[in-house]
C-alpha cells in the first residue's frame, strides 16, 4: 500500500541556500513507516515453521563447567533442540585482531554472570524459557575478581591461565618530551577519574533469526548497524564461506555502536537452525539486555597536566585502566582512542599515555556512542576547570588559549583540516550568557566542556581501513536506485545520502529510492560507526552521482549537439549552460540511452580517504581520521544541597559540523546525544556486586525521561571541511561526549564540590558537601 506523503514543510531557511537539498530541514524519508507502525523490526518478522530460542546463562562469575546434562530438557514437549559447546565449532571470536577468547557457548569455563552455556529451540518462547531450568549444569566455583586494579595485583585470581596479572594488553604512546614539559610547567595537577559501565539501552533489544535453505545457505535477519561485520564473523565461527551467508537487517531500533559486531546470539540461532532444519528466532529480554550485552568500557583515568601561569598547557600524562570484562572485543582500539583524545584535545605539546586493559569477571565491553571519548573527555574537561580555578582564570579563557586550530598537526599526528572549536567556544558562551551567569552564586551553576572526535570514522582502530561504496542505477523513466552498504539505524543516513545524490544529480528526492542493509544486494562497506557515514558514505554517494551525471551528459550532449562540459543538471533537467531554453529532461535522456540504444547507465564508487594514515604499530603516530569534529556544551544546573538532587535546567550546544546537510536531523542527533550524556553524568551505572547486576531493568537502571530533559539550544557552526561531501563531517558521537563533564563543571560552579566519579548521584554530592564543610571548619581553626 502506498501512503500519501504528508504535506511536509521544508523550511527554506537552511544554511546552504545555493543548494536545492543540502542544508534543508528534510524530515527523515523513512519516518512515515515508523509513524504508522508499518516499519518492520526484527521481532516483527515471523517465518513459517519458525522456532524460538532461549539461552542458559552462567549464574556464577567464574567457574569450571564439570558436566552438562541436557537429557531432561530434550524430552520436554515442544523442545526441538538443546545445544552446548559440543554442538558448536568451538571457534573463539573477537572483533579486533587481538587474542580471540569468547566462544559461542562456554566449554570448560564460564567467566561472568550471563556467560552463554547452553541454548534451546522450542515451538514457542514460553516453552523455551521453561525448559532452561531442566538443563543441569555442574559447576566448580572459582575465585573471581571484579575490580581491575585488584585484578592487576599479584595473587589475584587468574581469569586466563596464560595471562599474567590479568593484563590483556598494555601500551605506551609518547610524543614530545613530557619530562621537559613538566619542568617548564608552573603548576602540575594530578587527579583520578572513574567512569562507570553503562549499557546502550536501545529500546529495541538485540535479536536475530537464522534460517538455512536446502542447499545449506544461511540467511540471518539481525539487529545490526554493520551487516558485513556480522557476515564475516559468522563465516569464521560457523566455518562456512562468506557468500553462503546473507545478512539482512530490518529496521534497527537504535544501536549507538552497540550493534556493530556479533554477539553469541547470531551463531547460537544459526547452530540451532542447522540442528533443527527450521528457522530460529532469538531475541534478548530486557534483563538479558542489561546483564549480557556489552557495556561502554568502564575506566579509571589518572591524569596529570602541567600548565604555565598564563594558562598554556605544557605536558599531559595519563594512566588509563580499562575494565575489559571477561572477554576481548574492542578494548584495545577504544582505549587507544581514549588515550589520543587525552593527547589531542587542546594544543598539548608533550603527551604520554599508558594503558592497561584488564580482565575481570564482569560482562565485557564494546563501543557505545563515543569510542572511548566520553571517558577521556570527562577526565580532561573536569581537570581543565580545576586548572582554571587554580589559575584564577575563566574556564572559557583557558580553553580558548589552548584550542586546536585549523591547519594544526598534533604531536600524535592528527592533521586538523577544519576546526571550529574557537567559534564553538565563543558562540556557545554568547548564547548561554556565560559571562553573566558565571557570576551568579549557588545553588545554580553553569559549566562547559569541549569535544574533539572523529568526524568520518578512523583507521586502524576498527581492524583496518575506512571505506564505503555506493552503487547507482538509472531507470528508463529517469528515476534512480541508490544502493549503499551503510546502515540507517535511525540517525537518518538514508535521508542524508538521498539529499546528497539529489543535489549532485539535479533530481528530486522523490525520484530516488535508496536500498541498504542486505549483503546479497549492497556493496561491501564498513557500516555505521565512528560518526562516519555522512563523511565516508556521503563522499561515495556524491562521487557515484557525479559519475552518473557525467554519463548522462555524454548522452545528452549527443542529443543536444553540444559538448558535455557545456551542460548542467538541475530540477530534473539537463540544460545547455547559458541557454535556458535548450534542455532535455533526465527521463528523456535515460529513455533514449536505455530503451532506444540499449545502453544502461550505472555508477559505482568506493570512497576511502586519501589524507589518513593508520597508527604506526610501534609508536601509534598517525592521522587516523580524514576530519575531526569539534563541539562545546554549556550546562546549567540547580543543586538541592539538602537532598543532593541535581537538576539540569539548560544545555547550550555548539557543534562544528562542517556543513549542516540537514539541520533538522543534526539537531536530533545533538538533542539525543545530550539526553544520553545527562544519563551518563547523573544516573546511569550497572550496579555490580560480586559480578551480579543488581539493576537489570529500566525501573532501577534509570535513563532520562521526558520530564527530565532540560531546555536545549543548538548552534551549528559550518567550517566547510575541504574533504567532506559539500563540506560536511559527522556529529553522531560528538553530540553526547561533552555533556557529562559540562554538567560536572556546572555542579562545581554551583556548590564548589568536585565529583570525579560518574555518575554524580545525590549520595556522592551529600558526601562531598560534608567533606567540604569539614574542610572549611578545619580551615577556620
Amino acid at each position, binding site marked *: 500500500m502506498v501512503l500519501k506523503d504528508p504535506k511536509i514543510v521544508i523550511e527554506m531557511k537552511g544554511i546552504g541556500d545555493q543548494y536545492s537539498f543540502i542544508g534543508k530541514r528534510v524530515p527523515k524519508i523513512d519516518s512515515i513507516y515508523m509513524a504508522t507502525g508499518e516499519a518492520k523490526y526484527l521481532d516483527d518478522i515471523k517465518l513459517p515453521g519458525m522456532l524460538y530460542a532461549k539461552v542458559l546463562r552462567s549464574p556464577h562469575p567464574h567457574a569450571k563447567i564439570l558436566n552438562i546434562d541436557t537429557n531432561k530438557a530434550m524430552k520436554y514437549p515442544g523442545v526441538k533442540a538443546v545445544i552446548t559447546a559440543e554442538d558448536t565449532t568451538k571457534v573463539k571470536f573477537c572483533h579486533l585482531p587481538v587474542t580471540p577468547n569468547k566462544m559461542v557457548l562456554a566449554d570448560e569455563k564460564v567467566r561472568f554472570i550471563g556467560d552463554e552455556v547452553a541454548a534451546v529451540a522450542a515451538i514457542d518462547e514460553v516453552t523455551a524459557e521453561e525448559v532452561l531450568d531442566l538443563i543441569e549444569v555442574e559447576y566448580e566455583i572459582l575465585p573471581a575478581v571484579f575490580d581491575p586494579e585488584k585484578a592487576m595485583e599479584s595473587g589475584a585470581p587468574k581469569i586466563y591461565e596464560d595471562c599474567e596479572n590479568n593484563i590483556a594488553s598494555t601500551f605506551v604512546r609518547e610524543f614530545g618530551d613530557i619530562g621537559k614539559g613538566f619542568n617548564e610547567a608552573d603548576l602540575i595537577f594530578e587527579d583520578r577519574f572513574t567512569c562507570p559501565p553503562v549499557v*546502550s539501552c536501545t*529500546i529495541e533489544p538485540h535479536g536475530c533469526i537464522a534460517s538455512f535453505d536446502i542447499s545449506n545457505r544461511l540467511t540471518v535477519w539481525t539487529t545490526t548497524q554493520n551487516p558485513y561485520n556480522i557476515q564475516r564473523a559468522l563465516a569464521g565461527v560457523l566455518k562456512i564461506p562468506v557468500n553462503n551467508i546473507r545478512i539482512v537487517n530490518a529496521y534497527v531500533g537504535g544501536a549507538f555502536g552497540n550493534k556493530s559486531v556479533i554477539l553469541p546470539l547470531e551463531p547460537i540461532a544459526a547452530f540451532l537452525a542447522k540442528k533443527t532444519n527450521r528457522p530460529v528466532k532469538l531475541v534478548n529480554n530486557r534483563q538479558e539486555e542489561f546483564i549480557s550485552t556489552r557495556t561502554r568500557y568502564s575506566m579509571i583515568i589518572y591524569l596529570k597536566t602541567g600548565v604555565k601561569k598564563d594558562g598554556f598547557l605544557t605536558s599531559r600524562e595519563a594512566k588509563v585502566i580499562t575494565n575489559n570484562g571477561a572477554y576481548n572485543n574492542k578494548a584495545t582500539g577504544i582505549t587507544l582512542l581514549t588515550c589520543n583524545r587525552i593527547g589531542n584535545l587542546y594544543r598539548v605539546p608533550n603527551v604520554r599515555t599508558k594503558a592497561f586493559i584488564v580482565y575481570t569477571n564482569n560482562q565485557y565491553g564494546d563501543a557505545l556512542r563515543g569510542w572511548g571519548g566520553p571517558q577521556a573527555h570527562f577526565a580532561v574537561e573536569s581537570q581543565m576547570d580545576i586548572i582554571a580555578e587554580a589559575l584564577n582564570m575563566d574556564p572559557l579563557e583557558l580553553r580558548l588559549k589552548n584550542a586546536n586550530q585549523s591547519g594544526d598537526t598534533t604531536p600524535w599526528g592528527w592533521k586538523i583540516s577544519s576546526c571550529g572549536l574557537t567559534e564553538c567556544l565563543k558562540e556557545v558562551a554568547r548564547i548561554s550568557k556565560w559571562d553573566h551567569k558565571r557570576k551568579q552564586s549557588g545553588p545554580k551553576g553553569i559549566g562547559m566542556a569541549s569535544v574533539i572526535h572523529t568526524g568520518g570514522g578512523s583507521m586502524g582502530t576498527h581492524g583496518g581501513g575506512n571505506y564505503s561504496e555506493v552503487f547507482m542505477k538509472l531507470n528508463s523513466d529517469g528515476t534512480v536506485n541508490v544502493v549503499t552498504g551503510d546502515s540507517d539505524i535511525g540517525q537518518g543516513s538514508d535521508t542524508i545520502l538521498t539529499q546528497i545524490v539529489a543535489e549532485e544529480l539535479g533530481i528530486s528526492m522523490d525520484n530516488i529510492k535508496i536500498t541498504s542493509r542486505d549483503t546479497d544486494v549492497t556493496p561491501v562497506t564498513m557500516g555505521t560507526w565512528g560518526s562516519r557515514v555522512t563523511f565516508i558514505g556521503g563522499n561515495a554517494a556524491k562521487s557515484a552521482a557525479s559519475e552518473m551525471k557525467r554519463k548522462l551528459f555524454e548522452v545528452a550532449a549527443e542529443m543536444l549537439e553540444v559538448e558535455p562540459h557545456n551542460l548542467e543538471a538541475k530540477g530534473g533537467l539537463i540544460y545547455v549552460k547559458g541557454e535556458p531554453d535548450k534542455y532535455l529532461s533526465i527521463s528523456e535522456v535515460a529513455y533514449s540511452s536505455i530503451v532506444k540504444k540499449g545502453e544502461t547507465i550505472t555508477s559505482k564508487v568506493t570512497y576511502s580517504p586519501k589524507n589518513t594514515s593508520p597508527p604506526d604499530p610501534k609508536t601509534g603516530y598517525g592521522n587516523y581520521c580524514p576530519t575531526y569534529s569539534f563541539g562545546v556544551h554549556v550546562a546549567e544546573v540547580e543543586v538541592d544541597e539538602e537532598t543532593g538532587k541535581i537538576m539540569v535546567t539548560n544545555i547550550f550546544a555548539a557543534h562544528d559540523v562542517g556543513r549542516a546537510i540537514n539541520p533538522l536531523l543534526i539537531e536530533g542527533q545533538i538533542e539525543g*546525544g545530550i539526553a544520553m550524556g545527562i544519563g551518563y553524568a547523573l544516573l546511569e551505572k550497572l550496579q555490580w556486586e560480586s559480578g551480579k547486576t543488581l539493576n537489570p531493568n529500566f525501573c532501577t537502571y534509570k535513563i532520562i525521561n521526558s520530564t527530565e530533559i532540560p531546555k536545549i539550544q543548538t548552534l551549528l557552526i559550518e567550517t566547510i571541511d575541504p574533504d567532506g561531501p559539500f563540506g560536511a563531517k559527522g556529529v553522531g558521537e560528538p553530540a553526547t561526549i561533552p555533556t557529562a563533564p559540562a554538567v560536572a563543571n556546572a555542579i562545581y560552579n554551583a556548590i564548589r564540590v568536585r565529583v570525579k566519579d560518574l555518575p554524580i548521584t545525590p549520595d556522592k554530592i551529600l558526601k562531598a558537601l560534608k567533606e567540604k564543610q569539614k574542610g572549611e571548619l578545619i580551615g577556620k581553626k
Partner: protein
Amino acid sequence: MKHKIRLTINDELYEVSVEPYKTLIDIIRDDIGLIGTKKGCGTGDCGSCTIILDGKPVNSCLILGVEVDGSNILTIEGLRKGEELHPIQKAFIEHGAIQCGYCTPGMIISAKALLDNFPNPTEGQVKMALSGNLCRCTGYKKIIEAIMNVGSQ
C-alpha cells in the same frame, strides 16, 4: 486451557482463543497480527507497547488478555484514515520527532490519549503524559514540540 475473548481493535471486532497467561501485547501482535505496537521491556517500564484501552493509555505488556474481554482498543494502526495520516503522525514526521522509530508507536498513542482529554496541553502536561515512554534517540525535545504543535492547532 484456552479462553475465548472478544476485542474491538481499531473499530474491528476480533474473537480469539488465548491462554490465560497471554498478555495483551502478545495477543495484539501474534494472534491479531498488528505488529505496529512494540515490545521493549515486557515489564511496563519503557512504554513501547502503549495502547488505548477503553479510552485510557496502558502498557499492554502488563495486561492479560482474559482480563479485558469485551474491551475497546486503539493501536497505532488505527490512527490514520486510509491514506490520510493523523495530525499527530504528521507532526512527528515534520518535527523530526522520530529517529529509530521503535518507541514511536507508543509515543504517538500516549500523545493521542493526552490530546483526547486535553486538546491544548501545557508543556508540563505533555512531559508528564510521556513520562512512561522511554526514548533513547531523540532526547524527547522534538517529540514534545510535535505534540505541542498539534495541540496549538
